[in-house]
């Protein structure tokens, strides 16, 4: 499956344009790093509060940061897909990239679990108090996944193929 993906991307118009446009790759890198800062910064604040720390902050107010996390994620999804299209043979077979994608799915499922199961019960808790243990678990899963994603992304050039 990975081979089919690589073959279909290599030689595509976008692939050739990305590779032949010298300024484009470094520009993508700059936006990918700005995106990760927005995403990780928002998630750090949301999850630290969700884990029960920094109780001067109203836990319901931290939801306001979700659009910023969304903007960061969208920037990184777009630039990330352009990296993959630009150099599919490098990324698709890389074990670091593959585990990174798996962790993004885990982070997404955790966010879904939070939205469906935990967010509704948070209303009954003191907005300036401790959080239920299910919320804490979700916060730690989220932090571990996002920082794992960050580290694996950085290590792609240093790890081998899967």
């Amino acid at each position, binding site marked *: 499956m990975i081979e089919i993906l690589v073959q279909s991307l290599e030689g595509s118009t976008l692939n050739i344009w990305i590779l032949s446009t010298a300024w484009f790759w470094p520009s993508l890198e*700059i936006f990918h790093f700005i995106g990760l800062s927005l995403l990780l910064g928002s998630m*750090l604040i949301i999850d630290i509060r969700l884990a029960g720390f920094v109780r001067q902050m109203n836990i319901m107010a931290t939801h306001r*940061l979700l659009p910023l996390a969304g903007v960061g994620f969208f920037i990184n999804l777009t630039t990330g897909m352009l990296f993959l299209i630009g150099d599919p043979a490098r990324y698709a077979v890389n074990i670091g990239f593959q585990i990174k994608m798996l962790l993004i799915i885990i982070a997404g499922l955790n966010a879904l679990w939070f939205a469906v199961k935990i967010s509704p019960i948070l209303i009954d808790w003191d907005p300036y108090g401790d959080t239920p243990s299910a919320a804490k678990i979700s916060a730690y899963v989220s932090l571990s996944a996002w920082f794992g994603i960050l580290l694996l992304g950085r290590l792609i050039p240093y790890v081998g193929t899967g």
Partner: protein
Amino acid sequence: MFEWLEYSILSIWVGESLWGYPIMLSFHVVGLAIVVGVFSVYNFRVLGLFESLEFVAFVDFFKLAWFGLILNTSSGFALFSSQATIFITNIPFLVKISAISLGSILAFLIQSRLRVHANDWDSGVNRPTSKDFWFARTSIFLWASAIFGGRLIAYYF
């Protein structure tokens, strides 16, 4: 001086061992996410976004950001030492270091104002002034410039 640095035990480990450089890069990117992430959210808050987030809570988050900055300074020094003579003449690197130095001084000033005014801002006694807005915009510009310079280092040797 930079040649001497390149021959120190630290720089040889970072530059020549299999995992020295990637380990330091990992610390560096974690620190970057914490520093730029926390300061960005705060700057957007000052500029009027996420209005229900309490200013007083950022006193704690700034401590985390300073921890990130220490992580970045240490790992950055280790990375720098491995190729000191090359980095010191690299224009994007110099842009990055200047932006980080100014950004850190500004973050200290922003934190001082936060500590004095957080309770008043939260209770609505008064609001951030044009000085705070100017600090916030400049801070966003400086951290973005640091990323801009940092990402271009590898392309301008």
